[in-house]
């Protein structure tokens, strides 16, 4: 079966020795690879060949990882299904006929299919965790500032992080060990505060004895019944292993999706202004003036979801609307952050379904953008709060569709979520 996981299959060799020696690490196609085209899933960049490596790519190569190719994705990371790619949709190897999730759908799919040992994705509002959940694999969204974004083609800088995808928590943590840490080319990175020491991989010991798990009712109540059933079984499993659970409330998350989309679209409208068809990308030709040519290049090079987000972001930031949308969204973001920080003062981790629904059928969801945005309800609050989260396979619905469970930890609490997740996968 060709499930269309890769946009470009071209091997990039790594160092001979290192913690990833002998392993393959597929790379999402919005991460720059020197000499290997990097399309972002967009016709705009179909021919774009970066002159340099992203920091995470340098680190994977130095650690001995071999890169088998660049994975398919929603165009510029804008989607929840990998169906907005200019290179066609990716099928879900774990549930054929269904979407693999997005936007890092290709990365999760090649891992689920066994065509790569692990993969890198990027997570702006759930783009690592959603496909991990839909494909039955593990995905980690690190704390904002843990992993360098140098060489990541930006979508929404204040929200996004690069994260690992792998079959098990220990393998995902191994890849996180390789990519984490400060980089003077990304000034938002910083040294994590001294933790309990040891690598992230060592924290994958499955020991949840005494772990206090909070379950935010707002992130469970609205979920599909099939998802809730699998989630509840996983929670019982964790309790049997010595974890304690309690309900917590996060009233702010009711506004997280709208806050996320206002901020993400606003940042996207500014970031994607670089695609003018002059330095790279589709040329708009030389008829008319700069503005005419620029607008033609973007008409031709951008797909519909990208246009929709650039325009909505432009609208929300335009004169007269900034205070109504963007300023309120920043208030909501601060509220979400306070809510999570307060809850994580009381418990060690928060647990919820990663996605409130099982994977959609291919082609089912594209017609109604707003309904698709609402599917991100459980993942976007974590990006707004700058926190780390992991999605681990929790089981399958009666119909055989994968369901992911998300643990959220305090800032730089990666070891805690790795430990919790490793009890399940």
């Amino acid at each position, binding site marked *: 079966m060709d499930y269309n996981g890769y946009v470009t299959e071209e091997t990039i060799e790594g160092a001979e020795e290192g913690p990833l020696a002998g392993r393959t690490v597929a790379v999402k196609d919005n991460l720059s690879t020197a000499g290997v085209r990097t399309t972002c899933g967009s016709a705009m960049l179909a021919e774009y060949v970066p002159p340099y490596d992203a920091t995470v790519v340098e680190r994977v190569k130095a650690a001995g990882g071999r890169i088998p190719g660049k994975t398919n994705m929603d165009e510029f990371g804008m989607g929840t299904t990998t169906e907005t790619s200019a290179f066609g949709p990716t099928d879900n190897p774990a549930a054929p006929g269904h979407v693999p999730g997005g936007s890092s759908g290709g990365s999760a799919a090649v891992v689920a299919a066994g065509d790569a040992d692990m993969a890198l994705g990027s997570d702006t509002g759930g783009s690592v965790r959603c496909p991990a959940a839909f494909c039955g694999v593990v995905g980690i969204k690190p704390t904002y500032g843990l992993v360098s974004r140098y060489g990541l083609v930006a979508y929404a800088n204040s929200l996004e992080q690069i994260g690992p995808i792998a079959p098990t928590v220990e393998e995902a943590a191994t890849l996180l060990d390789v990519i984490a840490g400060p980089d003077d080319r990304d000034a938002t990175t910083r040294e994590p505060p001294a933790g309990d020491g040891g690598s992230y991989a060592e924290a994958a010991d499955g020991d949840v004895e005494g772990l206090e798990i909070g379950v935010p009712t707002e992130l469970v109540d609205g979920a599909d019944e099939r998802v809730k059933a699998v989630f509840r079984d996983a929670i019982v499993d964790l309790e049997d292993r010595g974890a304690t659970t309690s309900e917590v409330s996060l009233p702010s998350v009711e506004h997280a999706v709208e806050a996320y989309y206002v901020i993400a679209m606003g940042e996207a409208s500014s970031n994607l202004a670089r695609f003018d068809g002059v330095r*790279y990308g589709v040329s708009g030709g030389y008829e008319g003036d*700069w503005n005419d040519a620029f607008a033609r290049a973007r008409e031709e090079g951008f797909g519909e979801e990208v246009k929709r987000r650039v325009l909505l972001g432009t609208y929300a930031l335009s004169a007269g609307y900034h205070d109504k949308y963007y300023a309120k969204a920043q208030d*909501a973001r601060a509220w979400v952050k306070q809510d999570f920080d307060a809850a994580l003062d009381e418990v060690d981790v928060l647990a919820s379904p990663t996605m409130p629904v099982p994977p959609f059928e291919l082609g089912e969801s594209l017609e109604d953008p707003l309904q698709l945005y609402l599917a991100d309800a459980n993942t976007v609050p974590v990006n707004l709060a700058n926190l780390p989260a992991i999605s681990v396979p929790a089981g399958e619905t009666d119909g055989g569709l994968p369901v992911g469970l998300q643990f959220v930890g305090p800032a730089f609490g990666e070891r805690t979520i790795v430990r919790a997740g490793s009890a399940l996968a």
Partner: protein
Amino acid sequence: MSETSVAPETVRHVADLARVDLTEAEVERFADQFSEVLSYFETLDEVPAVESDAELTNVMRPDEEREGLTREEALRNAPETEDGYFKGPRVS
């Protein structure tokens, strides 16, 4: 949910600001979709004003020269170049 109605002229105006040409079919479709999405965004009105201290510190590095891209590398992806420069449309 309050109702925001977005006219096709508004979509055209925003597309002009964003420098994105649209087909008529896209304008019509976006007008309907934007009405729905913006109505949803308006629920942000219910969010209270929140005091927040951004935990931000400036990050500095020594101002030292380092290797950048060569001219050839920088121009490699340009659709058109002339005499070692990017070639673009006229500015006005």
